[in-house]
Structures are given as C-alpha cells and as structure tokens.
C-alpha cells in the first residue's frame, strides 16, 4: 500500500545544497579528503605540520646547510673562546653572522651546526623508535582485541609488565653494558640502534592498549560477522577487515608518540647515556649547557628551544590530526 509520492518536476535536478552557487562541481568526498579539509582549516595544526616538515628537511640537508651557514660541527675554534674564563669572547655567547647561534664555551664549536646535526640524531631515533613501538603495539593490540579470552589476558598482563618497567634505569644500565661490537654494528651506529630498541621496544603498550580497545569495538560490527560467515581466515579478517579501520588512531597516536620519544632521547642524552661524544645531540648539549647557564645562558637557549619547538610542533600537528580524523574527540 504505497502512496506514490508526488514529485514535482525538476526536483531531481536540484543541487543537494541549494546555497551553493557558482560553477564548482560537487563530488563525493572520501573520509580522507574530509579529514584533509578539516585539517587545512586548522591553522595551528598546519603551522605545526609545516614546522615538522621544515625540521625534517633541515635534518636531511644538514651537511648542505652547515656548508652554507656554518662550520663543521666538531671543529674547535679556540680563537673565539677565552683561554682564561673559557667563555666565548664575543658578546651574546659569540653570536655573529658566521656563528648564527654562537659558540660553545671551552672549545668554541659552532652551535648552529651542532643543532642542525643534532636534529638528525633526535629525529632519526624518534621516528624509528616510534615505528618499532607502533609495529609491535598494533600487532599485539589487534591480536589481543580480536581473539580475546586467554590471548587477551596474556597480552594485557604483558602490557602491564612493560608499563611497570623502570625504563630510564634499565636504559642507563643497558647502554653501559653493551659491548663495542654487536650485530655487525660498532660505535655510534650501535649506540643509536640500542637507543632505538630501548625507546621503541618498551613503549609499545601505550599504543597497544589503544588498538586493543578499538579492535574490541570494531570486531562486533556487522562487516566482521559477514566476513566470518563467509569463511574468511583470521589473518584476512585481522589485516583486511580490521586494520584498515584502525589507520586513523594509528596515525594519530604515532604523531603524538614521536614528540614523547624525542624527549626521551633528550633525557637519555642528558643523563650521559645517549650518543657518544663528540656527536651532537640536543639532550647532550642541554646537559653541557647546565654547567654554564649562570655565565653563558646563550648556550642553553639553542638546544632548549630546538627541543621545545620540535615537541610543540609535533604535538600541535598530532592534536589537529586527531580532531580532523575524529571530530567527536574534540
């Protein structure tokens, strides 16, 4: 008993949004496009994103930048430092057009070059450690959430154990204990690998828990039931059905994990278990600068600001990304 709807002629030709004028064609938008539009409108997040890109480019072309604007990062400039007080001879920590951020006390190394090279260490360690955490966290989280039962119980307790681990203390002990050669690596390469392992391997439960929670809710959806009833294997359900629906949280939490890993690397360098001298790292520079802050505060600013700006930029971008992908979380 259907009543035919009396459709006025021409109604099918109406634009969905009548207010839209002009000749722009309206297309259906994917979720990604919608998120991108929202993100673009968020000026703060965009500023963070641009800063992040600038930082990455800076790290990639560090040798070029230094050849243009600086001096080799490990080169001593005794002529710029007082042999007596050990302080930079020029005012403002030796800032000049040749030494954009000034020079270190004691040996007169170029702070600009050390900051630029330090970005390589900070970003490399933070990115790779984040990648490691996310890889482990996603696999463990999705498996725990999908299978449930004893698998979930075991993995969840494992997460608790990792979260309770005294990470800083362990890192200090481990870095001191590793031999000179290991896994075909030596010197700073080995140090960086160990730092990535420590930071990455022990931080996976944070993202693991989030992924587990998301999986728990997604696996109750109809399309998962449908896939099961069609006889799909666990593997294809996990990686074909569930994983694509988890891309948003993975992306967002990765962006938020990077700055915390940058801080962690800086903390380890500050405690003297970061990369080996004379390689520049922001945390290590900050550590040295604390011995001089009363008489040469200019030494403290470059590494401090570098860490501050980088962490802030990643956090702003990550926050904006989360808002753009999932507006309900606002």
């Amino acid at each position: 008993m259907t009543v035919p709807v009396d459709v006025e002629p021409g109604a099918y030709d109406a634009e969905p949004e009548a207010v839209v004028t002009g000749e722009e064609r309206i297309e259906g938008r994917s979720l990604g496009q919608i998120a991108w539009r929202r993100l673009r409108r968020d000026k703060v997040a965009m500023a963070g994103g641009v800063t992040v890109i600038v930082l990455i480019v800076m790290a990639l072309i560090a040798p070029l930048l230094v050849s243009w604007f600086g001096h080799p990062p490990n080169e001593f400039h005794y002529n710029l430092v007082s042999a007596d007080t050990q302080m930079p001879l020029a005012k403002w920590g030796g800032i000049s057009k040749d030494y954009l951020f000034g020079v270190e006390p004691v040996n007169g190394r170029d702070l600009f070059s050390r900051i630029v090279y330090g970005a390589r260490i900070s970003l490399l360690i933070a990115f790779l450690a984040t990648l490691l955490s996310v890889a482990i966290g996603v696999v463990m989280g999705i498996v725990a959430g999908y299978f449930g039962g004893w698998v979930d119980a075991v993995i969840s307790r494992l997460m608790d154990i990792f979260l309770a681990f005294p990470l800083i203390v362990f890192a200090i002990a481990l870095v001191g204990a590793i031999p000179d050669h290991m896994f075909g690596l030596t010197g700073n390469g080995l140090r960086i690998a160990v730092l990535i392992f420590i930071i990455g391997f022990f931080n996976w439960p944070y993202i693991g828990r989030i992924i587990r929670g998301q999986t728990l809710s997604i696996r109750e959806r109809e399309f998962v039931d449908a896939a099961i009833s069609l006889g799909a294997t666990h593997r294809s359900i996990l990686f074909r059905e569930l994983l694509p629906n988890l891309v948003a949280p993975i992306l967002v939490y990765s962006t938020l994990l990077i700055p915390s890993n940058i801080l962690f690397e800086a903390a380890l360098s500050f405690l003297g278990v970061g990369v080996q001298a004379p390689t520049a790292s922001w945390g290590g520079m900050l550590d040295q600068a604390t011995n001089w802050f009363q008489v040469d505060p200019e030494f403290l600013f470059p590494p401090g600001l570098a860490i501050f700006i980088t962490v802030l930029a990643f956090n702003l971008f990550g926050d904006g990304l989360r808002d753009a992908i999932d507006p309900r979380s606002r």
Partner: protein
Amino acid sequence: MVAATAVAALGLAACGGGSSSGGGTSAGAKPVKDAGIGKVYNPSTQKGGTLRFGITEDWDSVDPGDTYYGLSWNLLRNYARTLTVFKSTPEGAVVVPDLATSLGKPSDDAKTWTYTLRDGLKYQDGTPITSTDIKYAVARQLDKDTFPNGPTYFNDWLANVPQGYSVYKDKNLADLTSIDTPDAKTIVFHLKAPFAGFDYLAQLPATAPVPQAKDTGANYKTQVISSGPYKFQSYEAGKRYVLVRNDQYDPKTDPDSGRLALPDEMTIDLGVDAADLDQRLQAGTIDVDLAGTGVQAQTQAKLLADPSALANTDDAPAARTWFTVLPDYVPPMDNIDCRKAVVYAYSPSGYQRAYGGATGGDIATSLLPPMIPGHVAYDPYNLLKNTDGQVDMAKQELAKCGKPNGFTTNMAYRSDRPKEQAMAESVQQSLAKVGITVNLKGYPSGDYFKLYAGKPDFVKKNNLGILAYGWGADWPDGYGFLDQIVDSRTIRPAGNTNLGISIPAVDQLIDKALVTTNTDARNALWGDVDKAVMDNASVLPGIWSKGLDYRPPYLTNVFVNPAFGQYDYTTIGTTKK
C-alpha cells in the same frame, strides 16, 4: 699588622700587580689573589667565633679509621691526633711528630719502626692516651669488612697479619704480633719488607688513638672520642656536624704540628647545593668550602671576569695530575714509536683548556707534580714549547712504528665528567691531524676501574689504546703518588690503579727507593721513576691540577697546606663574631 701588610705586598709582587691600589696603608690584610699560597693570609692570634664549613655532599666517614678523603684527613686533625702529622705550614709538605716525641726510629733495615709518646696526652674525657690505644686503632681498621673506606697501607705493610683479622673477634689483640707495645709510652711496628718512608704511614688517620672500651665498630663515627683541640658536640648524619673546644687538650703537648685552634666552634653543613655554596661563600654565610677542590666552572668564569672578586681567591696547586695512559698491551700502543707519535701529536694547550685553562692547572711534562719532593723539571718531548701539538714529529714517529698513514684506536673516558669529555674531544681533534682516528668511548665513572679502563681484558677486547685518567697523591711523596700508578706488580685482573704501564726499569727503581732511608736520595729515585715513565712514552702527562678557592676576606691565618692542596683547616680563624 706589619706582618699583614707585608704579606699583602708580597702577594702583589707575586701575582704581577693584580690590584692597582697596592698594599701598605690600609688596616688589616688587603685581599690579593694567591695571598694564601706559599704564605699566610691575614696572620692573627685572635681567638673566638664560629668557623662555618660547607660541602656539597657527605664524605665517607669522620671515623679516623675509615676515611680516604683528603678533606677528611685535613679536617680530622682538629679532633684526632696521630703519631706523626703534616705540619700546618704554607711552605711545604713536612711530616712532624704529633703524639710521638720524634719521627720514627728505624732499625732492622727500615723493617722495624719505633715511636715514643709524649707526656700528658689525654682524651676528651680526661683519660690518658696509651700506646695500646694506638695499636688498637691501627688493628681495628685492618678489618676492611667493618671499615671498607680507609686505605689498606697497614694491611699491605705490617708483617704477619692473620687472614681475616678483626679486633672484634680477637679482643686481646694477641694475634696481631707485628705491633708491640712494650710500655704505655712506646709502640713498635714490624713490617714485612723494608719501607723507608714509614713516617708517612704513621701520619695516616689510622694511627689516631681509639679507646677500646668506647669503640662501637662501624658506629664509632657517631661518637668519636677526641684527642685533638676540638670534640664533637653533635653528629647529625648527612646534615650537620658541630665541633667545640676540647678542654682536655693541652697545647703544651702539641709543640710541632702548628695547630692554632682559633675559633671556639666549627660547624660543618653537608649537602649544600654546589652553586649555592659558591654564592654563600661570596656572601659570607659560609666561610670555607670543605671539599677544597675549587669553585664550580661557572663561578670561576665569573670570578675571573671581576678583578675585585678575584683578589679573594687562591689558585691552589693540588698534588694531582690529570693525565692519559697509553696501555702498552693494546696494539698498536705496544710499540713505543706509536706511543711517541701520540705524545707528540696531542695538544697540551687543548688538554689544559678542557680542564679550565691556566686556572685549572699547569701544562704537565711528566707525572710527578712540582709540589712533590723529588720532582725534576723534565720535558723530553718539548711539550711546553709546542703547546699545540707537533705534527711533523708525530709523523716521523708514525713512520718509525710502521704506520705512516696513522691508525685507528679507541679512547676511554668518564662520560659523567664534562671536563674529561672536553679533554677527550680535544685529543681526538689533535690526533686526527696526523691521521690517527680516535673513537671516543664514554663510561660511567662509578665502574670505570672495576669494569672498564681498569680491567685489562675489557681494554684489550675493546681496543682502548688511550685511557683518560687522573691521580691525586695519598700524601705528597714519590711513593704516595707514583707507586699505585706505575708499579707493574700492582696490576690485577680488574680494579686497577695502574692502567697499563709495565716497565722493568721502573719496578727496579721502586724497589730501590723503598729501602733507601736517606730522604733526599729516596726522592731522587722517585724523580728517576718519573723520568723513566716519560722516556717510555707511557702517558700523555696532561696537566698538574690547580683549583680556584674562594677565600672570604674576613678570615685569618688562611693558607694552602701543600700536604693537602687545600686550605689548612687547623689554623683558620674568623673575625666575624
């Protein structure tokens, strides 16, 4: 007052005119830089007041039997008297009798040493001090399980010490046959080998008498019984110690040591923040930095930039050398020409800058610091004339050792010491100029000797051809400084103080020095040891350390005692009431 101004004028002459106004007319002492080095700043006999010490941490113990810090050995002369003692004088490290009437009388080829006690010696409670108390004091600290901190010299030198000997098991001291007390005034030490410098051992805090009835083992530090001019009024562990006058101390029994005992009270504040301590010194709310190693780097930079503040400082030489060992068992350092190449290549001035420039120390040309008797100026590699390193000479030596294009090696340093790291970076830079690639390896200082640089297995496995190091004398004498770092027979599987110097000629010279009772001849032998080490190119001599000490202008009788490289803590008085 005449003396005071004379001192000020001397100080001026010595430092080449640090202040333009000059001394001579002003009342009291005029502060001049280094006025407390080699002479007494502001001499006075005025008693009274409180002398306030401050220190950033705590030290091992105030128990004379359980302490190994220079500051502690310096301070404890206020509450503990020993058989012999370093005289309170700015002129040199002189051992004089303290509880004993004279220095030790050797017999049996310097294997037996006899001391006689003075009359009228008393503890703070009025009971007399006997030779048995001194035997007990030496015996109790042989038990290194109870007293782990002190030096082991008596364990090493006394004859027939039973394995695991402890006075807490053997209450009658019967098993310790190597110390005789024939009467209450005489004590005789029997050594397992000749040791001509035993008077230096007799000044160790371990010979300060301890009454057996009052000894509580590891807890004795909370109630030390004084034999000196001051006694403990309060002991707050980790916070504050207060010393007041000991009315049982009779200055007539103490004619040689030079103790003045001017303040009525001494307070020691522990755990003061380092930067805060420097500021309180300058503000006059703390009188003496007990650690006696100089102000912080940034305070030093501030003081050096301010001539009027700099006048209140002494750049005190310490019996300490910051040097670097080239271990002779790690290739290519097993080749003397390769070692010489490194010695020629490194930059002595870069080394000096890393440790604080000229204020932090003088460029060293050998291990033995100039203040130690026996030191001879010896510079076989012309380091003083070529302070930036000698590329040509280094390349010649490299060619001789068969590596004309240089080589690659690793350098160990203590990563938690910023100065040592700066030094390592400087060595890396200067060696790179001759083609020697140095990879820096930082290790934590806590285990540096137990697990890393002091463990030959580790050093060899990790190809550590260059080892950053520093050594301070237990007492300023060739044995006290050199023995533990160059005698190859002290090398153990781990925990070494000799990081890899084995020269047969050096070992022979040491054996000869140990049996030479003539002081001058013995000192000359230690000078020869020093030369032999340099000829062997076993070390980069680095710098002879100095520390910039702040000397509040209102203090009296301030001077650096060369025995400690610190202000003498038994003579300082204060005009602040």
